[in-house]
């Protein structure tokens, strides 16, 4: 089958991914690549147009399969220039978690519900719903929407309000975990170790199994 990537015409074998086809055709690849096949690092962002389709979609080139007539272009990675800095302070007042959302992400309440983020997301997350839930104070539900986020930043690029939805989602996940996850078994073990009640004898005999 014939495809086109970054203007280069490529004959792709059945079943190959876009990155696989690009490499098999002999083209050099030093960026727009990371995990190479698992679809978890978000480096290989491409704009894709399939034969007979008007709309372009954004996808990950290491998982998208070649299809006859498909056209793709690599999307350069850009660091969002509006940073949303914060520090996860363990002593922070967790009663004010909702207030912190708009403190760190002041643009979030201006969401215009355009679904740009949802359309951009290559792993089909309900990004917009996550943003709405965050603004409403439904923090755990909002954080859950971003469970499978690969931080490709495509929603950040797509958002006309500069909300940086994925960074908002990650902030929620990180904040809720750091403020609330306190497993009892872990606490007990740390206590034992720090009181010197649990040590390791490096000379103890260890038998190799047969």
């Amino acid at each position, binding site marked *: 089958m014939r495809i086109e990537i970054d203007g280069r015409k490529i004959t792709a074998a059945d*079943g190959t991914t876009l990155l696989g086809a690009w490499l098999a055709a002999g083209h050099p690849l030093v960026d727009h690549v990371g995990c*190479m096949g698992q679809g978890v690092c978000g480096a290989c962002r491409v704009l894709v147009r399939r034969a007979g389709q008007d709309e372009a979609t954004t996808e990950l080139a290491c998982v998208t399969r070649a299809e006859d007539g498909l056209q793709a272009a690599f999307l350069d990675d850009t660091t969002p220039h509006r940073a949303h800095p914060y520090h996860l302070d363990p002593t922070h007042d967790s009663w004010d978690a909702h207030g912190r959302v708009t403190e760190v992400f002041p643009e979030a309440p201006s969401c215009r519900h355009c679904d740009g983020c949802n359309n951009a997301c290559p792993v089909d997350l309900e990004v917009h719903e996550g943003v709405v839930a965050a603004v409403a104070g439904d923090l755990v539900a909002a954080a859950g929407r971003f469970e499978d986020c690969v931080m490709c930043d495509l929603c950040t690029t797509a958002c006309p309000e500069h909300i940086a939805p994925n960074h908002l989602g990650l902030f929620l996940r990180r904040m809720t*975990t750091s403020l609330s996850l306190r*497993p009892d078994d872990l606490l007990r*073990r740390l206590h034992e*170790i720090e009181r010197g009640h649990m040590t*390791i004898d490096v000379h103890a005999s260890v038998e190799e*199994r047969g």
Partner: protein
Amino acid sequence: MTSAGIPYEHAVEAWRAAAPAPPRSLDVPAADVLAAHHPDHQAHGTTTLRVGANAGDRCPSVLADLLESASLVDDVDIAGTAVADTDVVVVGGGGAGCAAALTAADQGARVLVLNKLRLGDSNTVMAEGGIQAAVAPEDSLQRHFADTVRAGHLAGSRDLVAAMVHDGPDVIRWLIQLGVTFDTVAGDAGEVLMARGRAGGTTVPRILSCRDHTGLEIMRSLREAVALHPGIVVRDHAPVVELLTDTHGRCTGAVVVDLVSNAVQLVRANAVLLTTGGAGRLYVGSFPSSNHYGATADGLVLAYRAGARLVDVDSFQYHPTGLAWPSALVGQLITEAARGAGALLVNGHGERFVDEVAPRDVVAAAMLREMADGRAVERDGQVGLLLDVPSLVADQPEILTDRLVTLAKLAARAGVDPTAEPLMVRPTLHYQNGGVVIDEHGATGVAGLWCAGEVAGGIHGRNRVMGNALLDILAFGRRAGRAAAHAAGERIRRPVGLHHLQQWQRGLVDAGLPLDRRAPLLFPPESNVTPDDVMARCR
């Protein structure tokens, strides 16, 4: 290497007739199967190193070619090049690099993180099954220690294992403080307990996880924390191609290629920390690999050339369950958590042939034995064994939605319904067991040079248990970061040069080795880019 197997359709019929197949353990001692079938035990494809600190040691030829190669730069390349100063330079921002950078920066050091790809594009983000830490009441540090030493065939350094194991619970607390979440279960009295899975070859369930995308969960938070830290500067698409040294052989910085502006640049630092990860993309033994695109042994090459000693360079981990079909997905990983939860391995006759939760090297060797003896399964020219996920799902209906979410996605991409059809799997090159010799603080034999993560060796001996790599990279990443920041506190500006290369070059000539073979490789064999191509862009 593999003889053809039983046609897939027949194998599936045999599987269906017997599923779930009754247990069957190895019919010969594990040591015999390892000796006959584990790639580490085969002389084929290996050579003896002739130069450097490990001269005389066996090493896979593909790695030896890189270790015994000439530098990509010489004095002409660096003459007149501006030098940027920092306290600590971290080479490779995967899990180990980010842990080191955060720890060093928290101690007040100015940190520069240099990445070949982008921050976080690494093996760490791909980790699936989880991380080991002895938190359960019936578990102990001693038990974790013994399990690790035993699985490594007693070859690991006991002091390094103890250091790693000791840090386990504290590493988990640190991750939670950084916002990394873990699966939990309710105890009998309603208390919150960490959910635990079992790793092959261990005596107690100790794997802590976030579904089966633990690495993604960890890497997302580490990367964001690094990016937001005011004391850390991150540069992407900036691989390190050589180390800088002073006349005493002390490491004083790094030579960087900026792939955006196509320029060679120098960085001077009080402490250099290599966290470049593994070597899966060298396809040792012609195995497929589960690793990310940048896993090309660069750190081993750089450290070795600067005089560091390596350990167990001939020992690699072949993960039992890489996908074997379809061809476009060969090598992609299916987490060991699947077998830990009860997924069975069956051959072309529908029979089990090994205890699925035996140590990884034993399971992989047993699979290679089935493949060599014609009892494996063949489909469209690919050979492998069957992973019985359907029986697992029948037993635990929620498992694909609750825990093995990555497996479910991979099966969908393979066009396999994992509730109805087994997946075809085969061993895939997964992990570099050995690496640069370090002490408990990540210090190497070269002054000024620290290593942490998969690039370092001596911890896992000759076989690593699932979940110990993530613990290793974070435990030693933090330790090395702390030590490097401490050393950088002197703030002495040392001269930078390529002093170690003179002796190295002489060694190559004396050993009759070619001078036109250059490394580090930087990009894998399939990249259509050689290291010389990369340098040519800058000239």
